[in-house]
């Protein structure tokens, strides 16, 4: 959005200020602590074949003490992060804590990407565009991978080919379950939907799309009528004469109830399109729009609050996780 800002002296001034502040912080924190380093401690796992078999005729393995593991056992190591505040030299000397290069590089990358995106505030630049291109690619790829492992395989392949999926990726499944051939239909629908990527025959994807739209229309209709219409009318049915705990008339509670009713009804009048907004109706609609404005004001305040929290979290990451300043 550099276009909104004239190239002038303030441009380089802001850049300058940011660089100086950033540089000073980095130098200071690197001289005082293990800035941007991630230390991990290894955790060994070992499993041994018990010789028993489960319902699927697969071997049952049990977790054993890693130090007692033999060559026939399966072992691997995972790593746990040690917070830098808890890191003591003795741990490093004994080899209990090691510097994790992959995570340290990852941390620096995270910080650099964060700065790349923030650089857009100073002006549009290649770094931002690069980061933006990466967001699109990585998140789309991620969503695809997750939906394949979490939905496509257990919910579709697992039903069509239970024995195959059990023996390959989901050993916890029941291998003897019969294949449910009815699931060929959703599989076919998916193929038809993907047909859209083909250069011709785009109409084929209308079948799954029609199914999508029909199902959505069906459940939304009920959901909205029940929760947003009937239940809302019920919730609006408040007595305008409110008595407190002692049974006495409570002025403020009654005032609030009256106001709630007036506001609801007048705002609904504003959304009537069959009557001209003139005379009494016009005045009521005017009151209605005032209450709508208060509603929007509240929404405005809450939205601002949310956006600032997001920024605070990013800065906490930069200053805390990366630079160890807090």
């Amino acid at each position, binding site marked *: 959005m550099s*276009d909104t800002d004239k190239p002038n002296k303030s441009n380089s001034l802001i850049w300058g200020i940011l660089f100086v502040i950033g540089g000073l912080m980095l130098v200071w924190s690197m001289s005082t602590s293990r800035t941007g380093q991630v230390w991990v401690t290894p955790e060994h796992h070992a499993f041994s074949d018990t010789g028993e078999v489960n319902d699927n005729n697969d071997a049952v393995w049990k977790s054993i003490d890693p130090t007692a593991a033999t060559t026939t056992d399966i072992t691997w190591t995972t790593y746990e992060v040690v917070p830098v505040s808890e890191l003591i030299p003795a741990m490093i000397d004994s080899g209990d804590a090691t510097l994790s290069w992959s995570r340290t590089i990852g941390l620096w990358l995270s910080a650099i990407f964060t700065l790349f995106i923030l650089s857009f505030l100073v002006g549009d630049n290649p770094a931002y565009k690069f980061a*933006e291109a990466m967001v699109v690619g990585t998140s789309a790829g991620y969503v695809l991978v997750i939906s394949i492992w979490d939905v496509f395989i257990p919910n579709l392949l697992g039903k069509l080919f239970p024995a195959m999926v059990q023996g390959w990726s989901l050993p916890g499944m029941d291998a003897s379950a019969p294949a449910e051939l009815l699931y060929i239909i959703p599989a076919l629908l998916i193929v038809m939907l993907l047909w859209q990527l083909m250069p011709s025959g785009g109409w084929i994807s209308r079948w799954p799309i029609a199914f999508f739209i029909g199902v959505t229309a069906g459940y939304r209709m009920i959901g909205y009528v029940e929760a947003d219409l*009937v239940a809302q009318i019920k919730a609006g049915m408040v007595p305008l004469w409110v008595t407190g705990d002692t049974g006495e008339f409570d002025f403020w509670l009654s005032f609030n109830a009256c106001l709630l009713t007036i506001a609801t009804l007048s705002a609904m009048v504003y959304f009537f399109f069959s009557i001209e907004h003139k005379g009494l109706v016009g005045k009521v609609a005017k009151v209605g729009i005032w209450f709508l404005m208060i509603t929007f004001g509240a*929404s405005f305040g809450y*939205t601002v609050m949310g956006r600032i929290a997001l920024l605070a979290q990013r800065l906490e990451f930069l200053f805390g996780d990366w630079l160890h300043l807090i």
Partner: protein
Amino acid sequence: MGVLTILYVSALTVAQSPEPPTNLVVADTPNDAGKSIDVNWTLSPSDIFAESASDTAIPDPEFIVASYHIERKTVASTDSAIISDENKQWRQVSESAAGEATFTDRTVLLGWSYEYRVNSVDNQGNQSTWAIATGSVAPSMQWFNGSKAWLAIFMFVFCGLVVFFVNAARSGKKLWVREIAGLSAIDEAVGRATEMGRPVLFVLGIQDINEIQTLAGLTVLSRVARTAAEYGAQIEVPTCRSLVMAAARETVEASYLAAGRPDSYQPDRIHYLTDEQFAFVAGVTGYMVREKPAACIYMGGFYAESLILAETGNYIGAIQVAGTAMPSQLPFFVASCDYTLIGEEFFAASAYLSGDPLQIGSLKGQDWGKLVAVLVLIIGIFLATFVSKSGNQDGTFKSSLDFMKDHMLGNAGLYPTIDENLEGDDS
């Protein structure tokens, strides 16, 4: 001595466990597809939540009920299906915390028969004797879900109104809809752009063509394009989806044709930028700052980018008119635009402009639906106020109010049953 021993022994046996729950009643869950059974009991006297415990005797502190165990035995199956050995025995199906006296067993099968028993357990694990339900029960399917009867009636009313007015509009009946004030603001904005010799920017939101807000935006675009064609102003439409671009081109071309100036139509000014939200905004705001359009019109489905667009438009001093049904984005448009079509008003504007019987008929039907809602609401408020003012808890008003809340707007069924009336239950 013998008597004493007997007394001692009996006291010991009583004191070794909490008292069992009583009145175990098991029944098929009504209004369902035969997939569950309701289990109800009366709390054990050793339960501190039991009513009898609070006013009469305080339960023995050693044996206060911690939970209830619910056990089930399958006694008969359908179609000679085999009942597993585990299910032929009593087996625990759930554990309810102290104070709870109901449980719905949803792990039963339609048509099979089951027996139930419940006991109480204290913190040390001491179990009471079993309360056993008399006879077995089989879940059954009902043909109609009576608890939703009134919901069905409301659905019929609202749908009927929409269908009626859509049909009326299609058969050529003129349905009147009030003029939307914001539309004249759009004409003014286009007029001023013409005077200043600067273009008009029209943004259709970032949703795709299948979204109703985008379609409503296109209807408004056709009006704006027509006014622009008549005045001789330039109109610029960047889009976030390629399909929206195609539709916008068709719309604008038709408008120029209708205005009698097909030669001034420039398809290149309606162009697709990118699908990415923030990249799209960067492109549009870049254009705004370079070309300084005199009028910016935002009509469609917007998300967080609304704020950035409206801010830039304000900065370049353009007249801004917006319309969206996204409640969370409305505040930003209202605060920074000269005129905003709020929610339904946006759709009404689209219906008003298009003259499409489908849209106008729907709008009319919705208006009448709203009227029904307002009437029910007012009657309810009247009843509630009257009941509260009079303090009368068993008059006609009270029972009418309960009927409205529990039956019409609740899940208690079409009409009150006899025993419910007697109890005067208010939940």
